[in-house]
Each structure stands twice: as structure tokens, then as C-alpha cells.
């Protein structure tokens, strides 16, 4: 027999598939952690996986979620987007987890999205990204563009930057981020004097850096991800570029990456919502716990902090809802004001778009590969994934995007 055809009423079919199998009867609750432990992205994602374990341990020590201890199922996304999709489905239908935490690249999130939407699961995504997305089944605890990219641009404008060169990895986040940067730069009167992409798995940036040298920009906006950053930084210094004359502002170089560049990067900048150097009430304890945690890298950073937030945010959501049920959790997100005293400060969940408020900070790298904060947003920035509050973002694009997504 054949199933539903296009045009049939599919609401029943969809719902029946998504009948949840989560078992809430026992003293534990199952959660899924989905990170690339192998393959190219393991370079970044292992730390996120590890901090999720730490958060779970902490929550368990302090009594669990709704009195239930977290029992996590760790899955390997293997730096392969279909694997992310498959494992999401497995976690939801075979392991019957109540929620999934993980992912790093936007591609992995885009692979997970249709699956959690189809099965009505929950996915907590902890990395800064390009925005223009908001799924009822995903919670975004990393920055959207108006919390990282736009502050960075504001900072550049405040420094009187006139010309900017865009260097990025060749995939969805840098491409989209740069599209947005170009729109905003036009508004700010900053001229984009070049735009270069290199595949994620390629390190050699010498030819592109030669172009940067020739273009003589005031600043370089770096959206490179992963170890390709190392190649970029090396080529940058090889070519005689210096932070004094041609500084870099990055959105993917944090405390963990900075010392791994093989060249001191002192004087360059990064835009994040969290830095280890941040002076908040909660940060010292977070740093201390992390340093003590087995296999920790010894430094804290924004993506891992966002991952740490994600688990606590889930705890607050469930406790507000009084249930692990997805619809109940989503309803609680809307009806309650969910907050968490995060290491970056007290973040608040936007129940409509599932993003959180975040402070914007620009840090300058010092000799200890820590960041001296040189600029901060005056207050926490409310998440605005579709940039609705920004008139320079063309409404027709927004409309088309929302339309295409819906």
C-alpha cells in the first residue's frame, strides 16, 4: 500500500510518525549529545562534547532535572552531515532521548533541522552562526549575526575603518555572514576591497594573502573556521602584515585556537559574547570547574560556554514546563521568562525565536593568548535572527527567506 501523496492532508501522517517514545517513568532522563568526535571537525567539537559532559555531571550532582539524573547518549557526527541526520533520527527514535545537544558547523545544523522538525524533537545548538533561521525544534545558544557580526562591524566603524577585506572558509556560515557584512558595510560607508574563500580543509592561504597585501585594507574580517585559520595567520605574518597596520577581526578564533596558531597573534581582535577574561560573578567558578575537568583544554571559550548554557537552559525550560514533553517545553519558552546565570552574564531566552540575549564583546589578543576586552555593547543584545530591526537588510530578502523556509 502507498502512503500519503502530495496535496493529501499530511498533518495526521506527520504526527503519528512523531509519537514520542521518551521514557519519563524512571529516575533518569536520557539526553543525546551529538558531536563530531572523528573527522575534520573533531578538532573543534571534542571540546564541546566534553563541556556537555561536565554540565551533565554538574546538574546530576545538584539533583538532576525535575529530580531525574541525566543519562546521556554520546553520538559521533563524524564531520558528516548525513550522519548528523541519521544519528538525530537514531537518538530520537531508538534511544528515545528527550533532547539533543551539539553540532558545530551550520551545515550540521541544517542536516539536523528537518529531522527534528519531522520527529518533533529538540536540538540545542551552541555555536555562533549566520542567523536567518528559527526553528520551533531548535534552540540557539550561540550568537546570531546581530550579536556577533554586527557588533564587530560597529566596532570597526567606531575605529574609523574605511576599507575591509573579507576572508572566509568556503561554506554556508562565512558566505552568509559576508553577505550580511557587505550589506551593513554599505550602510556604514566601509568599502569592501576584496573577498576570498578557501575550502574548509585547505590550509594554504598564501595566494589570497598576496591579494590582501595588494588591496591594502584597513582591517581584515575573518570568518575562517577550523585549522585553516592557522594557515591564514601564518601567511599573514609571512607576508609582513601586522596587527599594527592591518589588524584582523575574527569570529572563530577563541582562547583555545589562539595559542595553536604557531605565531603569536597579539594585537588582533575577535568578536564573541564570552571571553575567559570576562569579569562576571559566574565566570570564575566556570573556569575553575573546567580546568579541573578531566581531559579539559585548560582554557574556556565562547562555543563551549554556549554549549554549557544549552544544557542549563534546557533544565530551566523543563522545570518551567514541569515536563519533558517537547510541546510543553516550547510552550514554557513562550509563557515563561527563562533565564540562566551564564558565565557571560544573565542570558534570557526569547521564546519566539528560540535564541538568547547575549552581550557583545570585542577582545584584543594579549601575549598570554587571552583577550583584553576593548569594546562591549552597552547592554545585552536581544537576538534578531532575521535582522528585522535593521533597515539596511532588504525586506524582500527577508520575505523570500521566510517564505522559502516556510
Amino acid at each position, binding site marked *: 500500500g502507498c*502512503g500519503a501523496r502530495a496535496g493529501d492532508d499530511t498533518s495526521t501522517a506527520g504526527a503519528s510518525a512523531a509519537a514520542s517514545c521518551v521514557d519519563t517513568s524512571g529516575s533518569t532522563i536520557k539526553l543525546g549529545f551529538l558531536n563530531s568526535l572523528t573527522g575534520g571537525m573533531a578538532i573543534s567539537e571534542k571540546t564541546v562534547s566534553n563541556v556537555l559532559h561536565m554540565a551533565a555531571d554538574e546538574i546530576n550532582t545538584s539533583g538532576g532535572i525535575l529530580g531525574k539524573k541525566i543519562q546521556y547518549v554520546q553520538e559521533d557526527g563524524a564531520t558528516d552531515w548525513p550522519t548528523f541526520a541519521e544519528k538525530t533520527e537514531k537518538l530520537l527514535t531508538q534511544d528515545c532521548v528527550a533532547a539533543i545537544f551539539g553540532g558545530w558547523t551550520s551545515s550540521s545544523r541544517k542536516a539536523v533541522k528537518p529531522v527534528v522538525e519531522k520527529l518533533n524533537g529538540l536540538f540545542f545548538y551552541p555555536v555562533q552562526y549566520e542567523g536567518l533561521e528559527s526553528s520551533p525544534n531548535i534552540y540557539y545558544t550561540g550568537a546570531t549575526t546581530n550579536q556577533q557580526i554586527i557588533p564587530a562591524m560597529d566596532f570597526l566603524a567606531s575605529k574609523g575603518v574605511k576599507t575591509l577585506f573579507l576572508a572566509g572558509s*568556503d561554506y554556508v556560515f562565512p558566505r552568509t555572514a559576508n553577505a550580511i557584512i557587505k550589506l551593513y558595510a554599505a550602510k556604514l560607508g566601509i568599502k569592501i576591497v576584496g573577498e576570498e574563500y578557501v575550502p574548509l580543509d585547505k590550509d594554504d592561504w598564501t595566494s589570497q594573502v598576496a591579494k590582501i597585501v595588494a588591496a591594502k585594507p584597513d582591517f581584515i574580517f575573518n570568518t575562517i573556521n577550523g585549522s585553516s585559520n592557522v594557515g591564514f595567520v601564518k601567511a599573514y605574518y609571512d607576508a609582513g602584515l601586522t596587527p599594527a597596520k592591518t589588524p584582523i577581526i575574527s569570529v572563530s578564533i577563541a582562547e583555545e585556537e589562539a595559542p595553536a596558531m604557531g605565531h603569536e597573534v597579539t594585537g588582533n581582535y575577535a568578536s564573541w559574547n564570552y571571553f575567559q577574561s570576562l569579569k562576571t560573578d559566574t565566570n570564575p567558578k566556570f573556569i575553575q570547574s573546567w580546568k579541573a575537568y578531566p581531559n579539559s583544554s585548560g582554557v574556556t571559550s565562547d562555543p563551549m560556554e554556549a554549549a554549557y548554557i544549552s544544557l542549563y537552559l534546557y533544565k530551566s525550560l523543563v522545570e518551567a514546563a514541569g515536563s519533558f514533553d517537547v510541546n510543553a517545553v516550547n510552550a514554557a519558552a513562550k509563557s515563561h521568562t527563562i533565564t540562566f546565570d551564564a558565565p557571560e552574564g544573565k542570558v534570557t531566552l526569547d521564546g519566539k525565536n528560540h535564541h538568547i540575549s547575549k552581550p557583545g564583546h570585542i577582545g584584543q589578543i594579549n601575549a598570554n593568548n587571552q583577550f583584553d576586552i576593548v569594546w562591549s555593547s552597552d547592554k545585552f543584545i536581544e537576538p534578531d535572527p532575521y535582522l528585522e530591526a535593521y533597515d539596511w537588510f*532588504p525586506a*524582500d530578502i527577508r520575505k523570500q527567506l521566510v517564505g522559502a523556509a516556510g
Partner: protein
Amino acid sequence: MTKLKPLPSLRGIAALSGIAMFAVLLLAVAPAVLSDHWLNNLGKYCCWAIAAVGIGLAWGRGGMLVMGQGVFFALGAYAMAMHLTLETAGDRVPGFMVLYDPLAPLPAFWEPFRSAGFTLAAIVVLPVVAAGILGYALFKRRVKGAYFAILTQALAVALATLISSTIRETGGDTGLSDFKFFFGFVLNDPANKVMVYLIAAALLIVCLLAVWQFYRSRFGELLVATRDAEERVRFLGYDPANIKLVAFVVSALMASIGGAMFVPIVGIITPAEIGAAASILMIAGVAFGGRASLFGPALGAMAVGWGQSSLGSTWPDGWTYILGLLFVVVILFLPSGLSSLPARFAAIRRRPAEQPTPPITAAELEEVRA
């Protein structure tokens, strides 16, 4: 002289009943006993198995180590994915394209994939034409062995990089996903998922039957002859390039079919599924199962797929080591793959007895022929 006659037909029956058994398992038993998740996974393994059957033909029988089957896998997969994307998008330009150039129309090469018929034809014709041209160029110039392997691998890398870097045209590194319909059927519907699985499984059976006929035909012998002494075949009046071309094109077609079915089953296609690592993984299954045997490639591909899903879950670091060791151990100690094991055991058991006329097993003959 007639005494040899029964032999091929006897093997024929053995092989045919093997295929029949396989068909029953895949088409009747599996849907009845497996959960949706595992049935879907099995469907994915079937797609790899289809490609693997083709690799068995080209590599196991034809000696062409095709390290870039991802290229043909991609042709089928992307043709299918483009159609499904358009089917999902309706009259709109697909969502991912909007951002980079909101006002630009659909790229011209997407347009024909609105048509279901064109898409199905493309899945067959594209790999045949591409493999035909590529194979003709390479084989006529007598490119073979390691050169052929590395060239095809380089092609897979090049295509994967090209797709990654054309984000608006192809979805880039993120790939194409989020398909709602499959030729008018709602993909989320479990009943339709089973149907899609059954199509993939049936196609696998068809491919097995096809190579079975190839292997027992004179062409199969000629192919082996070409593998072993290409120049000599020339002096028998054949053009080895043509013989290899046929095997190469057929294997490309199978890869394309596997790729096409992969898309509705897995729900996403990305350049990583067609690049160097993916192409090598396809080879791994074939080597593991037995490159020159009939069932080996399919079973090997399924085993590797299963290993990845299950061991890769429970023990991700370990799985990478296991996969690595699998290559080493199988190639080192069992070059004819797992399918040669029965014959090996039989040989070990037989030796002390020194029977003058040992019963010939299909697998053993396979081994001699390989």
C-alpha cells in the same frame, strides 16, 4: 568435452537461488522485522551496495580500481536531489539560493529537473555519458593501474570541491536536504518511506542479476582476460578499451542509481558523500566482501555501512581504528574478501584427507576465476 557443460549452469542455479534468497530477505523479511530507523538505514546500505556491485564489476572483474565512484554517485544523487528540492520548493526558488542572490532566477541547469521524466532519464544518461567520455579518453590512451585509480580519485576530489564552492548553484558544503516529496509522495509518511526502501532493495536485486549475467557470459571472461593481459587481448582482435569501457560505464550507472536512491532515503546529499573519503569507503566494502565475487561487494558494503551506524555509535574512536584495521587485515590476509572464507575453510578441512576430487564450491571457482 561435454563433461564441463553442467558446471556453469549448476553455478547458475546456486547463484540464482542465492539472489532469490537475498531478495526474500530484503523485500519481505526486513520490512517485517526491522524498525523504521533500521529499515531506513538498511535502505541506505542498499544504495551503497548498488554502487558496490558496480565497483565489483569494474574493479574485481575488470581490474579498474575505480577510486572515484563518488563522481557517478553524485550525478545520480544530485539529479535526484535537484528534482526533489524543486518539488519541495514548488514555484519558488529554493530557499538556500535566495540569500546569495535573492533576485536571480533559478540557474538554467536546474530548470529541466523540474520534470520527473527528465530527472529519471538524467540519472541513467548522465553517468553513461560522463563515464563514456571519461572512460573512452582514459582507456584509449591506455591509462590504467595506479594512474587510473589516482586520476579517478582526483576527479572525485575535484567534483566535491567544485560543489562545495558553488554554494548558490548546488548548496555547497551543506548540500541539499529537507525534501518533502518524492515524485508526488509525501516523504514523511512512514508507508512511503517503506516504499522508497523497497525500490532501493529491488534495484539492488536487479543489479545483482545484471552482474550475474555479465559474469557468466563470455563478456565476463573477456573482462577478466583484459584485466590480466590487456595487450594480449588486443592481439586476439579485441579492443580492450571497449571491453573496459562497457564495464566502467555499467559500474558508473550503478553508482548513479545508488546515489539517486540515497537521496530520498537519507534525506540529504553533500559533497562529503561523493569525495575522496566516501569513494574510498565504497571500495572498502567491496574489498571486505570480496571484489570479484557476486555477492561479496554488496554484502561488504552493507557490512561496512552497518559497522559505521552501529559501531560508529557505540565506539566512535574505535570504529575508525576498526575500519582502518579492516582495510589492512582484509587486503593483507584475505585479498579475495570474506566471500572466499568458505572456500578457505573447506580447503583447510580437506587437506588432511587429500581427497582426489574435492567438491567444487561456487565460491572456490570464483576464487580461481578471480
